[in-house]
């Protein structure tokens, strides 16, 4: 089968799954079962389509659309293939996970949830493969709408508010993207992306298109300061949908930025300041994202802020790639973009894993507040282990995948700092420092998250009595945890593939990125890294305590104490344990100015929310106005008339007789005349 056939099969299965789920909505077990089975098959098929087109030639399907300008063109190039593969992998896991997880939502329209999930996944697949601006926008909107319905699935005030903000930002972004595409279409005389690729714009026009596209897709990606919807919307959605939104959907924003800057505007040379702009946004997003995440004690909000941070890291890579292209350094360009794309894949995997882990915990503990968890590693060992792998990966601990992509990002930034114009030499070291700061804070944040959720004493009755998540949920998490390990350990073999995608997207020759089991950033003379070797060393390190224990256990085991720890003379108490808030307190004090930035940004955005609330208020006032002016008088009139009628219809038959007498007398009087 060709990749396009796989893609078509996947979309058809999604469609079947969506409508089957909707039609069978009355029987929730059946609906969710069929939706999940169709989803798993669709994802497997999509994975085939994605993996087959990673290295292979570009395959295109072109059909006549309903309008002359709307040719239905699907194009599976390596970049789209990568996105399809990532979407499929995450959706595969989400469907497996959802099999058990939707029980949390039983009685609240599980059929509808399956429908929107299928629609969401299919529209994401179509967005990344569409090769016509008209269809791209249609599918982009479909994706936003389907995910909007998933965000408001809880239908409480929080979810609806978050949903509105999301809806607003997503559509504001769409408008910018639309404007960018219209400018391109105007110059190209067609809505086909193929025509966009060959058009050459004047520098100001190209910059306008880029900035419009960057801001539009940036809003989708959740980069600061357009991130405000993300920490509200992602936590509101069901966890497997959050995993897809945070893991995959925001990556479509990155995909769009890459697509506009490097693919559609490929006719002309990108300008240096574009890359620097992307770099700057990336650096700010990564640092602020993680700083804000530290202050959160809502587990899903914390993860959502980490998405902002990781989008920043991806943008650092993409920005480096764009700088390399503008500076005419093919190695740097490929290295930077490859680092960005690698981190894109990695973030999808570990953020998906972390959201699923959070979902499992919430599934058992019934709260998102980390302060009420604690000690779950004992009762939910598989969830804890998977979450730990995800936490290590996102904190860029070697040899896991997060480390590899961040390493490449650093190498790209260093390479750019060593050669290039003054602006680049000035900007990239700052970005590298920001990345370092981000990494350190991310470690701290996940020490907090893992520690407060899984270690220490239980802080609530639910946490104390939690049990391991159901098998499908554990399976989903373990699959992603293994993917984290594989993407890290097998980096020497994966990096060249992603490097190939980067060079294909940039239209440049491939660069050496690995040699045997070694990772090489362009040239082996600068630095090398081998994750398999690190893994072996770490495993060796783990054996060390065993050796020590074997040597000393005989004599010292008798003297070991198993009493409670010494607590300054007091009996140990749950309240003595470190809380999420107290752990993050020093950081909060240290970064007070950065939190002030958030407050001011949130203040600016809150106008939208306030506007919406005012609008709702106005609508609420208008409705009773119509009631009091029109409906109430009519009902009052009817009631009063009814009372009068009641006098006539007294129920006393003598009154009826009286009517007969009256009527007869009148008739007789008429007859008499």
């Amino acid at each position, binding site marked *: 089968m060709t990749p396009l056939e796989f893609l078509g099969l996947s979309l058809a299965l999604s469609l079947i799954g969506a409508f089957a789920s909707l039609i069978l909505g009355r029987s929730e077990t059946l609906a969710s079962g069929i939706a999940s089975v169709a989803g798993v098959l669709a994802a497997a098929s999509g994975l085939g389509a994605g993996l087959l087109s990673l290295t292979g030639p570009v395959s295109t399907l072109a059909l006549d659309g309903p309008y002359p300008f709307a040719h239905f063109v699907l194009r599976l190039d390596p970049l789209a293939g990568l996105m399809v593969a990532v979407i499929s992998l995450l959706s595969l896991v989400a469907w497996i996970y959802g099999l058990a997880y939707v029980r949390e939502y039983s009685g609240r329209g599980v059929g509808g949830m399956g429908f929107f999930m299928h629609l969401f996944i299919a529209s994401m697949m179509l967005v990344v493969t569409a090769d016509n601006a008209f269809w791209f926008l249609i599918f982009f909107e479909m994706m936003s709408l389907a995910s909007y319905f998933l965000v408001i699935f809880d239908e409480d005030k929080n979810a609806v508010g978050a949903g509105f903000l999301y809806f607003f930002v997503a559509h504001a972004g769409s408008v910018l993207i639309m404007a960018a595409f219209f400018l391109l279409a105007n110059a190209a005389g067609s809505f086909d992306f193929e025509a966009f690729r060959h058009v050459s714009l004047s520098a100001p026009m190209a910059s306008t298109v880029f900035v419009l596209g960057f801001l539009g897709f940036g809003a989708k990606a959740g980069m600061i300061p357009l991130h405000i919807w993300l920490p509200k919307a992602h936590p509101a959605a069901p966890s497997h949908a959050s995993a897809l939104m945070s893991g995959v959907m925001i990556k479509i924003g990155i995909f769009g930025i890459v697509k506009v800057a490097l693919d559609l505007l490929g006719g002309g040379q990108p300008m240096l300041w574009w890359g620097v702009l992307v770099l700057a946004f990336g650096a700010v997003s990564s640092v602020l994202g993680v700083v804000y995440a530290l202050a959160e004690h809502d587990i899903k909000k914390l993860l959502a802020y980490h998405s902002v941070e990781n989008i920043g890291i991806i943008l650092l890579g993409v920005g480096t790639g764009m700088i390399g292209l503008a500076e005419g350094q093919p190695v740097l360009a490929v290295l930077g973009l490859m680092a960005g794309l690698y981190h894109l894949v990695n973030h999808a995997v570990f953020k998906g894993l972390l959201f699923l882990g959070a979902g499992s915990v919430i599934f058992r503990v019934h709260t998102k507040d980390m302060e009420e968890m604690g000690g779950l590693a004992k009762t939910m060992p598989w969830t804890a282990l998977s979450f730990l792998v995800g936490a290590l990966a996102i904190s860029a601990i070697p040899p896991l995948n997060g480390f590899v992509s961040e390493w490449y990002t650093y190498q790209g930034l260093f390479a750019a700092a060593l050669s290039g114009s003054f602006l680049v030499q000035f900007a990239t070291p700052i970005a590298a420092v920001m990345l370092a700061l981000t990494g350190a804070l991310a470690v701290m944040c996940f020490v907090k998250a893992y520690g407060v959720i899984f270690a220490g004493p239980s802080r609530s009755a639910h946490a104390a009595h939690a049990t391991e998540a159901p098998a499908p949920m554990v399976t989903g998490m373990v699959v992603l945890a293994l993917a984290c390990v594989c993407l890290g350990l097998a980096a020497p073999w994966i990096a060249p593939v992603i490097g190939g995608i980067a060079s294909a997207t940039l239209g440049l020759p491939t660069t050496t990125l690995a040699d045997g089991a070694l990772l090489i950033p362009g040239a082996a003379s600068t630095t090398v890294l081998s994750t398999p070797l690190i893994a072996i060393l770490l495993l060796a390190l783990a054996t060390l305590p065993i050796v020590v224990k074997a040597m000393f256990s005989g004599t010292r085991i008798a003297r070991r104490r198993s009493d409670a720890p010494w607590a300054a003379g007091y009996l140990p108490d749950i309240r003595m344990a470190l809380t999420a808030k107290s752990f993050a307190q020093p950081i909060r004090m240290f970064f007070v100015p950065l939190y002030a930035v958030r407050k001011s940004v949130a203040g600016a955005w809150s106008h939208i929310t306030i506007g919406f609330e005012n609008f709702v208020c106005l609508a609420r006032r208008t409705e009773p106005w119509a009631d009091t002016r029109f409906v109430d008088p009519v009902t009052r009139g009817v009631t009063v008339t009814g009372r009068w009628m009641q006098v006539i219809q007294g129920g006393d*038959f*003598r009154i009826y007789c009286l009517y007969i*007498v009256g009527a007869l007398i009148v008739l007789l*009087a008429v007859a*008499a005349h």
Partner: protein
Amino acid sequence: MQGTLFINGLSGFLIVTALLVALAPRPVQAARFYALQSLVLVALFVSIAMTTGSTELYLWSASAFVTKVVLVPVIMTKMFRRLEDPELGSGAVMPAALSIVGAALIVILCYAVISRVTLPAALPLKPALAISLAHFFLGLGCIVGQRNILKQVFGYCLMENGSHLTLAILAPNAPELVEVGIATDAVFAVVIMAVLGMRISKTLGSLDARKLTTLKG
């Protein structure tokens, strides 16, 4: 000519007896007055039969005597004897004097109406016809003007007598079948209504027609 005069005069007496029935303070007395009124009615039938030479009317008067003078008053006396509602009193809505004035007004109105009738059969008996119509109204008036449900049964009987007389004046040669209908009508309707009255009295503990509205489901 003398026959018609006699008939008209006798019908005037019918109004008097009807008022006695309507205004009698107790149901048993009313039943006796009713028997008297029915007797007047029978006399009227006989005189009409003699005037018009209708053989059917003799039969009518015989069956009316059995049903209305004997059967119905006896049934009523038997059944109503034990039904009492001391709270209700006479149950009249308006004073007796006012009722008599009302009755007079009705008779005048009916006379005015009947004076326009130009049926050849009714021409000599116009006063009697007017009175039969007024009698019907008096019955209705008795139903409206009395709160005692037993008196309302008498109201029905008065209406029935009025229509009976109208029929006899306008169609003296009507077949016996009609009479059979009327006779059964009178007896059975009275029996059913009397049973209903007893049941209501038993359930409700009252004979007040106003309180019947509380039975609404």
